[in-house]
């Protein structure tokens, strides 16, 4: 039994000592679970909040989301196991405590590995999301260019329509009095519809949702700016993930030191039990006086 514990502890010490270097190679270890977005560029017409939701819903349907969820569950059960073991550690003594400490170190190593894999998957998710936003931004820029082309037309057209509208009523009266004929069917329907459109336009102007939009310091934010802000959020999440990797690195270092201490304790247990002291043998120098005193 003792030999087995010693063998395991040695293997564990080596594993824990190399855990710092293995963390760097986690991307290669992460399986090839991915997220291939199926949403179209049409989501660009959605308001920012709903656009984000649409992207997240698309992600939820991906194998990457399933993998992340499954790892999350494993991590949670691992954390419960480690917490329980750590709180019960004082209840054990002797060999049992050594076994418990061994399980704790081994569990911590598994936790770090799982967290590393999860961070890689989270990174993958954010990178795909960033690529989606980048694509949407390019599409938005193209649309903005096309819109600027049509804006010139709209401006001229609007000026013509407004100018014509100013004489619409007087023109109807003039036509009726001058020709003494009833207005055409088209003119009647046109006036009716024009009146309806005016009322509807007024209602649109007064609608509260017509004035709802993202703004910074009271200034309305363009579509491109909204997308850039979302991209900044994703980039900050990626930066946080990098910091989490550093945290994991430090955790791995601590596990490595724990494993080293555990190995020392194991040695003490095997070779230093019951206050065993190695025998010391007499030296001729200790008995020198026997030979010097001649009396």
């Amino acid at each position, binding site marked *: 039994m003792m030999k087995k514990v010693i063998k395991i502890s040695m293997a564990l010490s080596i594993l824990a000592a190399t855990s710092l270097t293995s963390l760097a190679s986690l991307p290669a270890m992460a399986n090839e679970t991915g997220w291939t977005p199926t949403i179209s560029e049409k989501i660009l017409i959605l308001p920012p909040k709903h656009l984000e939701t649409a992207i997240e819903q698309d992600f939820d349907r991906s194998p990457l989301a399933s993998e992340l969820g499954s790892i999350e569950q494993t991590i949670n059960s691992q954390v419960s196991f480690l917490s329980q073991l750590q709180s019960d550690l004082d209840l054990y003594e002797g060999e049992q405590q050594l076994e418990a400490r061994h399980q704790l170190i081994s569990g911590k190593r598994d936790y770090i590995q799982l967290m590393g894999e999860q961070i890689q998957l989270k990174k993958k998710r954010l990178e795909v999301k960033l690529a989606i936003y980048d694509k949407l931004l390019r599409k938005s820029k193209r649309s903005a260019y096309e819109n600027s082309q049509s804006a010139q037309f709209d401006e001229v057209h609007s000026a013509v329509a407004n100018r014509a509208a100013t004489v619409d009523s*007087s023109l109807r009266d003039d036509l009726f009095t001058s020709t003494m004929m009833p207005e055409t069917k088209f003119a009647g329907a046109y006036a009716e519809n024009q009146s309806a459109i005016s009322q509807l336009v007024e209602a649109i102007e007064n609608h509260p949702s017509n004035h709802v939009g993202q703004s910074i310091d009271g200034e309305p934010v363009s579509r491109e700016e909204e997308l850039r802000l979302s991209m900044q959020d994703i980039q900050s999440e990626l930066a946080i993930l990098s910091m989490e990797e550093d945290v994991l690195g430090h955790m791995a270092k601590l596990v490595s030191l724990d494993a080293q201490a555990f190995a020392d304790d194991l040695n003490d247990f095997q070779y230093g039990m019951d206050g065993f002291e190695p025998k010391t043998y007499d030296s001729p120098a200790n008995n020198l006086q026997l030979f010097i005193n001649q009396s």
Partner: protein
Amino acid sequence: MKRLLALSATLFSIAATMPAMANSLDNLERERAIAIAKMLDGDISVSQRSEYMMSSWRRLTDLEKIVINDKSLKSSAPAAALRAFNSYELTFLSHAAAENNQLITQHWAETVGLSTSDLLVSRVGR
């Protein structure tokens, strides 16, 4: 070969039965051209001209409104539409004349630079 001929014949018959679609701007231009031709027609009497211009006025007013509200011009003929819009005084004769409280004839003549004094001093030439 027979199949090809049959297909060509079918396509030809479909094309032949499809109406030639003129946009609203084309219709307005046509009506305007006819109205100006009548204005300048020396072979009709004053009352005939006046009678024609009254009915043309109604048609032009309707056609101008149709053009102003035609959203398809932006995609079908943007350049022609822009040119027409920028020449408001000559394109929308009825509306522009109403702005100046003038008849179409008077408004058109003034816009193209034909005043009564100009016409009085003019000579018939070959």
